[in-house]
């Protein structure tokens, strides 16, 4: 450590003072998620409106946290709920147990359960963390507490996130687009020789 290094460090911080803060003021501005973010699950539908879930319970079997409970029932042939023989009469995920690992999504043979983008699930009672089909189906906007609040205030659910584009697996989901694409972070250490000058933004 020399005096020169000390002076140089002052320069680095002074430069940082005049750069734009990387902070996202989250509740005021939507947080920019990556396209493959693991959020709340979504039960998708086929284009015709039939549920993809066939009640096979493979997701429940794959779940390492035992968060999923599925109860299957036979489809009414005249008025089917799902595209297969059976459908999920009950489909519940306990969000307090769920570790958002995405194994259910991988286990699903029909691509019915997909990790979405919602993450604002903080709530007051344990029972409110068990999400049923009425909370997970693709047309439902927002999480339980968000929807409860929107019934109180009469305003629409305002999602707190934005993504550059939706995954193709999330059929029928229209997530809010990130308005300004942040400058892509510089590839880390593209110049490993220059040790003293990696003051660039650690975003």
């Amino acid at each position, binding site marked *: *450590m*020399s*005096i*020169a*290094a*000390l*002076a*140089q*460090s*002052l320069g*680095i*911080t*002074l430069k*940082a*003072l005049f*750069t*734009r*803060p*990387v*902070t996202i*003021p989250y509740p005021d501005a939507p947080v920019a998620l990556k396209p493959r973010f693991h959020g709340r699950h979504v039960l998708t539908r086929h284009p015709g409106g039939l549920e993809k879930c066939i009640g096979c319970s493979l997701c429940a079997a794959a779940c390492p946290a035992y968060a999923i409970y599925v109860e299957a029932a036979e489809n009414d042939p005249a008025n089917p709920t799902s595209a297969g023989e059976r459908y999920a009469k009950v489909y519940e995920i306990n969000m307090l147990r769920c570790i958002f690992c995405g194994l259910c999504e991988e286990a699903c043979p029909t691509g019915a359960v997909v990790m979405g983008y919602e993450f604002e699930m903080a709530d007051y009672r344990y029972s409110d963390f068990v999400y049923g089909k009425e909370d997970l189906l693709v047309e439902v906007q927002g999480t339980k507490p968000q929807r409860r609040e929107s019934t109180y205030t009469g305003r629409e659910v305002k999602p707190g996130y934005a993504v550059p584009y939706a995954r193709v697996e999330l059929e029928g989901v229209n997530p809010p687009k990130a308005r300004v694409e942040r400058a892509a972070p510089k590839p880390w250490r593209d110049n490993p020789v220059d040790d*003293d000058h990696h003051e660039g*933004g650690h975003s």
Partner: protein
Amino acid sequence: MTDSLLAAGVKAFLVVFGLLTAFAYMTLVERRLLARFQVRLGPNRVGPLGLFQPLADAIKSIFKEDLVVSKADRLVFLLAPIISITFALVGFGLIPFGPKHAFFGWDPWVINLDVGILYLFAVSEMAVYGIFLAGWASNSKYSLLGSLRSSAALISYELSLGMSLLAPALLVGSLNLQDIVAWQENNGWLILPLFPAFALFFISSMAEAARTPFDLPEAEQELVGGYNTEYSSIKWALFQMAEYVHLITASALIPTIFLGGWRMPGFLPDIPFLWMFLKMALFLFVFIWIRATWFRLRYDQLMRFGWGRLLPAALIWFLLSALVVAAGASISVLNWFSLASVLVLLAVLLSGPARQKTAKGGAA
């Protein structure tokens, strides 16, 4: 002392009130600035731009539970923060902010002491007791170690602080802050002939205010929290207050002694309060900037730097300026010496790559 006792009382109250408000907003300014230095935003939730954050902090710290360790020495435990804040507050009243009668017909200072510099020195020495007694009274090993360490550090840096102030006192021939400001009006700023004294005083006052390169009293990584580990709520806030008031006093004292006080060089108009506040703001900014950048010195490094580098440098510079004054030479001789020291510093600064270990360690 041209003002009446009543005027002095009112001004003392104003100074205390102003200092405490300044403390509150300095916490906000410091947090915002530190955040920006770290490419963050900082506290901005309470009120517009986070302007009510100090208020929220005050309410929180007043209504927090006031814990007293059961084995603590209750009297001293209570006394320590009070000592700390009292001796922090009483120093500021000396600093002149303008010419006579500039403050609504009153003088813009509380008292005008003939032994002003000595008084400030005495007051800052007494501030050690707050830290010292806090650590002892808490009856906790972290607190005691922290307080022993930091009071040893404070005492060590006190020496170079005093030594660096000897040179300006010698040159001006007075210990009165008003005289120092007046002298600088006639003979130019003291930073020119006494740059090394200025640098030494700057470093030592950083240590006196327990700011970052020397913020051993805090040392939360090693000692949980140093001397104020066992303190909570308003007593803890009093310690914080004392630290910031020391900082504000230091940032007002440095310009007063070395940068012409409330005056500016000829081509700028003399606006009593503005220049002083601007200079204070500059030094406060530099203090925060340094805090955002540098690391804390280890205890042994701190002591070695204080006794091994700072004190000899202060002694040498004092001897040099004393010789120049005793020989009756003009100040321009000191100007050359000062320039030479700046050149030496620059040479050290620019010589060699940054990675190379040089003989001179520590901050400059």
